């Protein structure tokens, strides 16, 4: 079995992951209390509720789930004197491929999350909270339930917490394998016992109409853990960690073709992509060359290794200047990754070497999104399947000449046209892979297939790429090589199946 790095790397600054892989550390409450546990909750309970919110605002903490929305601003949307009850939900549905940070917090330091949550509940005046944990973490759910029972027993949860008069209850709620439950309104629907179809927003965000149509805050596991540390050091002090507008630490999860994949908690922006891969992860596997990086979970746009990226940077005189950098010089922070056309997302960095075919990689990603589309909006429900079918076909060697253009067209017609951000999540990989690795897609799109010019009696617009249907490909290749059932899954005797 492989093991992740057990010793923190010298470049790391461990706050959230302080107790992960710590020798002698156990998940029980006594271990936690022996290390100063629940002191920040006691401190927070002596502060006024708006003061706690203000500290979090001052810290500049941005959500660690993917969108990077400022946590204090989100909390500020809650009206504390709301006549309706206020709910808090911890999003522990961690399901963005490439991301695996919450797994370690939940399994190794559950009380940190519980403390962060109770402080957050106090801040927004929530008396009932749920931890929505993905169904695939059955052990994690048990660990959290034990931690909650321990906290309840010691008076850190339940009625009149630590004699403050504040009541708060937290329950664990298990999901059941649906990626879309990571989307906050989908999660809320799921918690209400329904299919997790995301809600239309604006006008009403969960902070106004959330769980049971009441004001609700949904925060990621890592975000809620940060709250504890913000109370410990004060918002202003916390804001000094990292970079302006990109404060605090961030857990980066690295997987793929590096020597030592793993998790690294660093000050936001303090390491570059190159340092992360070459120093912290020991470089590329088998001495191969870096080809591409997906920097923030599989829905983030791919970055090509040999491309130059334009960013804006403040020089010594504080003047903003344009600068061109290579992929290895990109600092891992929210704003720079957005500036180079991708996103910091959930912190899941997937690294690919020069042995990887980008069409096969995209085909794998498209299988995921086709499986996970909830089916509520037509562009996404249909488009994700079209993209899956087309990339499957290209991998099987049956790609038609027009396929790359159709892929782009389908993706362009999903992004921005759906209720939730899943539309972007499934379109961005296709848009970026096809644009950045055009030569590879063209190489897999060699067949001359004449598509129907007319579909169901409606003439298609001139100049618009025309979807080639599988039966047309089959007709064009009649007498040729038979098409395997699931083409890009290679037979057992070859090395592959790997992308």
């Amino acid at each position, binding site marked *: *079995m*492989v*093991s*992740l790095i057990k010793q923190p790397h010298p470049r790391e600054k461990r706050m959230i992951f302080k107790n992960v892989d710590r020798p002698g550390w156990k998940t029980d409450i006594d271990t936690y209390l022996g290390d100063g546990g629940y002191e920040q909750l006691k401190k927070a309970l002596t502060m006024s509720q708006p003061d706690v919110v203000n500290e979090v605002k001052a810290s500049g903490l941005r959500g660690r789930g993917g969108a990077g929305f400022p946590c204090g601003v989100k909390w500020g949307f809650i009206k504390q004197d709301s006549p309706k*009850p206020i709910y808090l939900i911890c999003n522990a549905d*961690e*399901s*963005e*491929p*490439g*991301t*695996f940070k*919450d*797994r370690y917090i939940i399994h190794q330091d559950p009380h940190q999350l519980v403390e962060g949550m109770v402080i957050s509940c106090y801040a927004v005046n929530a008396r*009932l909270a749920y931890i929505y944990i*993905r*169904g*695939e*973490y*059955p*052990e994690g759910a048990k660990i959290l339930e034990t931690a909650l029972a321990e906290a309840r027993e010691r008076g850190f949860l339940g009625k009149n917490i630590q004699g403050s008069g504040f009541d708060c209850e937290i*329950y664990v*709620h*298990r*999901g*059941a*394998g*649906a*990626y879309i439950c990571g989307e906050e309104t989908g999660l809320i629907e*799921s*918690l*209400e*016992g*329904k*299919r997790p179809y995301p809600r239309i927003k604006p006008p009403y965000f969960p902070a106004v109409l959330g769980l*049971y149509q009441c004001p609700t805050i949904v925060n990621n596991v890592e975000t809620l853990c940060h709250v504890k540390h913000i109370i410990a050091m004060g918002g202003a002090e916390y804001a000094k960690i990292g970079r302006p507008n990109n404060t605090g630490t961030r857990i980066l999860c690295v*997987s*793929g*073709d590096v020597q030592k*994949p793993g998790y690294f908690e660093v000050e936001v922006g303090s390491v570059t992509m190159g340092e992360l891969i070459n120093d912290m992860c020991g470089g590329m596997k088998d001495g191969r060359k870096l080809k591409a990086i997906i920097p923030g979970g*599989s829905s983030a746009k791919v970055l090509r290794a040999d491309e130059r990226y334009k960013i804006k940077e403040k020089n010594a005189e504080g003047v903003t200047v344009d600068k061109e950098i290579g992929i290895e010089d990109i600092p891992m922070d929210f704003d720079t990754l957005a500036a180079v056309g991708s996103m910091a997302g959930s912190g*899941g960095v*997937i690294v690919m070497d020069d042995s*990887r075919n980008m069409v096969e*990689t995209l085909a*794998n*990603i498209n*299988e*995921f999104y086709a*499986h996970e589309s*909830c089916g509520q909006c037509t562009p996404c429900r249909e488009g994700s399947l079209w993209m899956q079918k087309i990339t499957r076909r290209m991998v099987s060697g049956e790609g038609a000449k027009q396929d790359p253009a159709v892929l782009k067209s389908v993706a362009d017609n999903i992004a921005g046209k759906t209720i939730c951000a899943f539309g972007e999540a499934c379109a961005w990989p296709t848009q970026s892979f096809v644009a950045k690795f055009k030569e590879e897609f063209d190489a897999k799109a060699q067949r001359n297939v004449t598509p129907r010019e007319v579909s169901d009696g409606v003439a298609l617009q001139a100049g618009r790429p025309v979807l080639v249907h599988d039966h047309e490909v089959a007709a064009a290749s009649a007498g040729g090589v038979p098409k395997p059932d*699931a083409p890009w*899954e*290679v037979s*057992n005797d070859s*090395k*592959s*199946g*790997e*992308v």
Partner: protein
Amino acid sequence: MDIPAELEQKIDETITHYPVSKRSAVLPLLHLLQEHLGYISSETADWVAKKLDLQPINVLEIVTFYPMFRAAPPGRHHIRVCRTLSCAMAGSYKLLNDLCEMAHIERPQHAGHGTPFTVGEDGKFSIEFVECLASCGTAPVCMVNDDFYEGVNKEAAAEILQKYQ
């Protein structure tokens, strides 16, 4: 339906976690019942509906949407192999094939809705190709029942199968 008293007690306690709406308890109840019965039959779905004052469709739409709920019985040990990118790069397609071969199970079709898993003839194992299990740093990974295994090569897979004889 024969529900042991202890399980029904656990179910009743779980419902109290949702003071605002009993309907919220659909997922936890289905988890508890699937753990006990192996899968969710229409009879089970009806039982849950009755318990929560819902229409049967309100439960069936959940069973058919969420990939973890099974509408057919699995083997005595249910194996889930992660299919998604980092695991695929580390050889999860081969791991699936190896496991199927060693456990004498037909290879399941590509991850999808409905009943995407296959069961061996002796009913000992069933196997499913699932989407991301969120341990990309230790790929390829799989689960057997609720147990989690990381960095599984062919030898480790053989050992795992041995363990659940």
